[in-house]
């Protein structure tokens, strides 16, 4: 092999995606394609009411269908698992509805059959009788409503800051994060200017191309779960807890994931397939349809009330944030979203007096949880729209106003954590330079008006979390990395292989990464929140360093100079007399973290690193239709050092375009709790032909000193600024300010009519 290639620096190299060829030729393995003998297929019967007590379920017609194996209800599950409730934050979600249903679409019964179509047909024959209860849907109403989704709160032991909610009755509030810094009210009373606004975001769906799919295979005294999950270790833990089994009797494995975006974190349909398989004593597979995904998990709808005090010279002196997160009927990981994101609600600004109330609220809607950005896009939408309104009202250039207030290196974030390796200002500088912010701008004519806008957001990482990794070097010098980071399309396998190769001094192409299998791949908290490159990156680096130490010792022992994989191979041969043996390197990493104080919400070390993303938008509004054409989208992020620039680039544009859909067109529309558009014909995801005319991405030349090789996460940063940058550009173009997402053509057109004093009357 060419020595030059081997010696090449692996960090910063755009190594082609290792799975690319297999994916484009249709050979990559997906869970959906697994065929097992004797498998039963499950299809669900779902609640048609939003809230009620189950009086009876009639499954007789379904049982009578030829080919049906059995029909299972919540009570059947309870015969297997006495307390069949799961969830990472609260043990609130039953495997199948028990006693009560809490949202339209909640699984009530499952038909098992050898043919999925028979199961589906039979599920349609099930009927249920309910005693209907009043329901509550809006997050602000639910915060104080006498209607309660759960009788009693049941926090899981995982998160210390939820302990105080144990046994609480008569509330829908599943988490109440508070930040108290300084005295906001005194500032509001004396400030030169005070601004107050309320913003809304809508419920949306992740829409991975591969819907939820899982297959449980009971063995003699263990169970294997083949599942499309972002969190195999957690699935194992939670299934073991539900069954009361030791972890080593539960094996969880994945294949390639057809997207996740946060939908496939923690457990979703796994408890159900496991329970069904154990009851039936046969393998059970469930593959949800695209439409069913709407009823599993979505992104929080929010209401955000924000109030700022601004000094005469344009400095934000105080900010008060009240955020209501619509968590739906089951908490899932929602309380983490409202806390971990909640504490950043004041934005990337230096603000001395700050107050945040961020509450996760149960409602009778489908559950909401993690979604690319983990709550940050909802917050940035509000605070960066608000920031722009203030700048315009004070006649200060929006870029200048941001630069005047932006957090700089060493500044204290309102939580009390000092900013380190967080290039906020540089992100603003690069966006404005690319856009030519100080240059004259063509504002369009007639019915086509042009405007531009910018926005910037910040996200903390999830902490504290732990990753383990294992590097196995074979006798020919090639290596296999065992790690539970799930490559669901983001290219992590390629980047992780680069870290191993960098440390060992080999080429990335000589490193392979296994698919997760909890029997062999070591623990990792999960692939979410852009945590993997930082946390798993460190663990992989340490494992590779551990391997290298042993390899160097082996070389020393055999009198061979450690250079590259050839010298490694020689050393093995010399030591064992043939091409034989292994070297195992292990490593693990836990991030540093200090929990927020319960009363003040403050902490000196609230996150191991900050993620920063900003977007600049130039667009054209058709004033007669409200249609928006994005002419130019500029996304700039601080991702630390880019391990694989090409992967980083696609993460930025993927995130930004996903958020563009959430901004302009996607919306789950509910009528009394019933979803009216559960189909991709009515739920509008942008297509190839709806993309911006031009899109540019930039990852700053930056270094995260605490990160592996200077890197940090980048999976979500591209989402942050998109929504408010678009809204700010619309305002710039036509003088219409919108406070609710999505910014549909009709909403924009209605805004135009209202602004000229002729509101559309239906």
């Amino acid at each position, binding site marked *: 092999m060419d020595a030059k290639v081997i010696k090449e620096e692996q960090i910063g190299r755009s190594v082609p995606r290792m799975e690319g060829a297999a994916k484009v030729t249709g050979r990559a393995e997906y869970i959906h394609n697994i065929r097992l003998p004797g498998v039963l297929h499950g299809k669900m019967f779902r609640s048609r009411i939003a809230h009620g007590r189950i009086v009876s379920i009639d499954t007789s017609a379904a049982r009578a269908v030829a080919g049906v194996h059995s029909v299972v209800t919540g009570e059947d599950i309870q015969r297997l698992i006495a307390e069949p409730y799961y969830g990472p934050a609260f043990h609130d979600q039953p495997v199948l509805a028990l006693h009560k249903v809490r949202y339209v679409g909640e699984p009530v019964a499952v038909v098992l059959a050898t043919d999925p179509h028979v199961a589906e047909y039979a599920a349609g024959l099930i009927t249920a009788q309910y005693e209907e209860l009043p329901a509550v849907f809006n997050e602000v109403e639910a915060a104080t409503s006498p209607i309660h989704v759960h009788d009693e709160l049941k926090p899981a032991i995982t998160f210390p800051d939820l302990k105080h909610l144990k046994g609480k009755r008569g509330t829908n509030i599943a988490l109440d994060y508070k930040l108290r810094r300084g005295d906001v009210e005194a500032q509001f009373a004396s400030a030169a200017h005070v601004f107050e606004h309320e913003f809304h975001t809508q419920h949306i769906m992740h829409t991975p191309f591969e819907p939820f799919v899982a297959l449980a295979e009971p063995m003699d005294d263990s169970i294997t779960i083949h599942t499309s999950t972002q969190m195999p270790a957690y699935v194992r833990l939670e299934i073991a807890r539900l069954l009361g089994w030791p972890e080593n009797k539960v094996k969880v494995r994945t294949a390639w994931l057809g997207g996740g975006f946060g939908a496939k974190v923690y457990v979703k349909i796994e408890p159900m397939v496991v329970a069904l398989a154990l009851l039936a004593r046969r393998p059970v597979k469930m593959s949800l349809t695209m439409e069913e995904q709407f009823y599993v998990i979505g992104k929080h709808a929010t209401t955000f009330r924000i109030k700022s005090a601004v000094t005469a010279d344009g400095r934000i002196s105080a900010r008060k944030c009240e955020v209501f997160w619509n968590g739906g009927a089951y908490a899932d990981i929602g309380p983490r979203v409202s806390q971990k994101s909640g504490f950043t609600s004041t934005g990337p600004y230096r603000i001395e007096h700050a107050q945040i109330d961020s509450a996760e609220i149960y409602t009778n809607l489908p559950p909401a949880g993690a979604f690319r950005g983990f709550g940050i896009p909802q917050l940035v939408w509000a605070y960066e729209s608000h920031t722009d309104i203030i700048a315009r009202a004070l006649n200060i250039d929006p870029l200048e106003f941001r630069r005047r207030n932006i957090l700089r290196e060493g500044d204290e974030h309102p939580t009390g954590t000092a900013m380190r390796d967080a290039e906020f200002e540089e992100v603003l500088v690069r966006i404005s330079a690319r856009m030519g912010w100080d240059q004259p701008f063509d504002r369009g004519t007639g019915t086509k008006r042009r405007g531009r806008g910018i926005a910037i957001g910040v996200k903390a990482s999830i902490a504290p979390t732990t990753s383990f990794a294992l590097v196995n070097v074979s006798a020919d010098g090639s290596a296999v990395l065992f790690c539970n980071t799930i490559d669901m399309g983001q290219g992590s396998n390629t980047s992780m292989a680069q870290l191993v190769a960098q440390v060992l001094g080999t080429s990335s192409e000589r490193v392979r990464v296994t698919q997760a299998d909890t029997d062999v791949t070591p623990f990792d908290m999960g692939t979410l929140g852009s945590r993997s490159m930082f946390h798993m990156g460190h663990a992989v680096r340490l494992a590779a360093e551990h391997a290298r130490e042993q390899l160097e010792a082996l070389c020393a022992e055999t009198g061979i100079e450690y250079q590259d994989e050839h010298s490694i191979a020689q050393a093995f041969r010399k030591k064992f007399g043939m091409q034989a043996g292994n070297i195992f390197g292990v490593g693990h990493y836990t991030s540093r973290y200090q929990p927020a104080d319960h009363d003040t919400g403050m902490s000196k070390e609230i996150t191991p690193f900050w993620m920063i993303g900003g977007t600049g938008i130039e667009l054209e509004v058709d004033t*007669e*239709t409200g249609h928006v054409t994005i002419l130019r989208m500029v996304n700039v992020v601080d991702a630390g050092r880019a391990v694989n620039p090409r992967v980083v680039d696609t993460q930025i544009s993927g995130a930004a375009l996903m958020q563009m859909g959430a901004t302009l*067109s996607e919306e789950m529309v509910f009528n009394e709790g019933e979803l009216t558009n559960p189909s991709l014909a009515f739920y*509008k995801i942008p*297509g190839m*032909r709806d993309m911006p005319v031009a899109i540019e991405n930039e990852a700053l030349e930056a270094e995260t000193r605490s990160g592996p090789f200077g890197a940090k996460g980048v999976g979500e940063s591209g989402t942050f600024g998109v929504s408010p940058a678009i809204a700010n550009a619309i305002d710039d173009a036509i003088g219409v300010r919108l406070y609710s997402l999505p910014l549909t053509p*009709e909403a924009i*057109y209605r805004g135009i009519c209202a602004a000229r004093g002729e509101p559309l009357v239906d």
Partner: protein
Amino acid sequence: MKLPPLDYALPRSLDEAIALLSESEGQAKLLAGGQSLMPTLAFRLATPALLIDLAAIPGLDRIEITAAGVRLGARVRWVDIEQSEPLRTAHPLLVAAMAHVAHYQIRNRGTVGGSLAHADPAAEWPGLCVTCDAIIEVIGPAGSRLIEAGAFFSGPLSTHLAEAEIITSITLPAWPRGRRWGFQEFSRRRGDFALAGIALHYDTDAAGRVLDPHIGVIGACHSPHRLRAAEQAISGQVLDDVLIEACAQAGSAEVDPPTDLHGSARYRRALVHAMLSRALQQA
């Protein structure tokens, strides 16, 4: 879901197809491009016992251009129109409108006969037929008959086609030289069905006055129809900005759009105004 269980037939002639259709007593469905029918079956919104595929019947895919006009066989696809060189001069309005029909993959299979029978109020082709005085030829057990496009539709997704009748061709009257035309539509995403759209054409006399205007609406209606008040507003006049605005107002006043998930009636009315005025400017 998968399709319901059903039989499949591939008749070689129209007679054979009609016989199969009559024998089935309403239990059969004709299959053309399948772009509307197959989703309907997959969602089990229809459960016919038999599919009669028109693919093997000779002649149905022909485009004929004569002095009398343009005759399209029922199985002519959107791409056939889009890519037809002669049609660019023989009927430029048709060709221009095709860019708005769905996406390439769907245009590659969708047919003119299928679209008429499906009768989606937001579809381009039914609106074009109504606007352009098309004559629809159908054949059934009792022989063939001609139906004016304006009298073909009875509401959203319904037509006056009898149970065992097959659409065989559509004829559009000849397109005079110098005819002015416009086509404008608005949809949420590129390739979506229109929230509102306008097809129009008119001729002019030596003095530049509008003669015989034809203005049709899609999307903002229960089935496509002509906008008579809008036509009236410009007939015999020389178009200018004031007249275009008056025509757009008349058109948006006379439509009766539905409110649904895609948009409110009030918004669609506003879109009719914008599309009509743009189509006139385009012409």
